[in-house]
């Protein structure tokens, strides 16, 4: 069945079936490796995606959202406190793929907050309070900003502590700042030379992951 000419391969498998057998083995090894590596990679990926940070929004693109933040409940809570909220819905190319982009803005006196969301999943939160240059924030203003800062972490005390700690240090310094807290992009901006302006805090889930 097999002709014996030329140098003899010592491997019995190769000797008997030649390239066909080699390819078959290679395919088998590749398949097993693929499944193994894929499984390991997937497990590592789930582990990476877990934790307290932002998760991918349930949309077609790579936007990140704040997991478990119930936008309607937040808006209701604010409205019960006397805030007036209004919703802007953007109709853009997302309409084509069935997604919607909303922006909810709530204000009471000089206290403002804005939620950017995709299909009801919050992507970023902004809060601002009026402030005067050289004058520290009132306790109530700090409380308001702090409430917004810990919104992504209502059931994660350690991360919430990190966020509120960062905020109070920034407020004590009275300076602009930026920080990555558990994958969220926190930034605070103080007014420039203008006289009647605001301190703005932004919490952004951003693109995150591979695109950060």
């Amino acid at each position, binding site marked *: 069945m097999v002709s014996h000419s030329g140098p003899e391969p*010592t491997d019995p498998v190769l*000797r008997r079936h030649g390239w066909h057998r080699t390819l078959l083995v290679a395919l088998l*090894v590749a398949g097993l*490796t693929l499944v193994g590596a894929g499984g390991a*990679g*997937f497990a590592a990926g789930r582990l990476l995606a877990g934790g307290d940070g932002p998760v991918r929004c349930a949309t077609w693109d790579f936007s990140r959202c704040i997991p478990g933040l119930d936008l309607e409940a937040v808006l209701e809570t604010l409205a019960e406190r*006397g805030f007036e909220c209004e919703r802007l819905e953007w109709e853009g190319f997302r309409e084509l793929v069935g997604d919607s982009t909303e922006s909810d803005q709530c204000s*009471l006196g000089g206290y403002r907050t804005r939620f950017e969301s995709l299909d009801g999943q919050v992507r970023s939160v902004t809060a601002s309070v009026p402030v005067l240059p050289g004058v520290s924030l009132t306790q109530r203003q700090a409380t308001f900003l702090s409430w917004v800062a810990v919104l992504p972490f*209502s059931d994660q005390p350690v991360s919430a502590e990190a966020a509120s700690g960062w905020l109070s240090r920034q407020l004590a310094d009275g300076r602009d700042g930026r920080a990555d807290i558990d994958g969220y992009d926190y930034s605070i901006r103080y007014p420039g030379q203008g006289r009647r302006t605001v301190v703005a805090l932004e919490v952004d889930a951003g693109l995150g992951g591979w695109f950060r």
Partner: protein
Amino acid sequence: MTGQAPRPSRLAGRLVIAAAAMVALVVGGTGGLVLGTELVLGSPEPRDLPDLPPDFPDPSVQYLPGLTVSEVTSSLAGLGFECEELSTWPGAPDLQECLEAGGGGRLSARIEYDSESAVRALITSCYRRAEDTTRRCEDGFQSSVHIALASQPPAAREQARDWVERYAEEVAVIRDGSEVVTRAGEIALTMSVVSFDDGDAVYKLDLRRA
């Protein structure tokens, strides 16, 4: 024999297998990792929101603390002002304008409010002629500070008085058409000046919740 495959060397065969394994490792690992991080496994359960802290902003942050419309008007009446309600646009705060009786309208106070116990602002305006050296404007402003900051701690009232005194005296400190702002206690004080070619100027002091 027909259909006979060429026989590879042992080394070449192992290289092919190793290469296939490497490619599968990289492709599988990367694919798995990306899938693992990017895959959305359903929306996470909505979390319960913690209760709002007691000092979270409430509707009172729009109003001068501890002040009623009748308190303001009676205080102004005691200083010789006469108040009357003005009509406003629907949705806008109610207004009362109080003019100094016999003062030729040079000193006036305006009260913005939503209801009797919800005073948004007390705004005092004073028209000062270039040759006027009296303390008419300063006194009017100090009176409005006295009324609006009645419930503030003494230190805040003192601070507001000093601030008003400083800016009411030093016209040049405030750039024409601009304004200066400060905060005393829970009250924001804004002073602005608009001056005319002949040296006359209108001063305005706006007191509202910071």
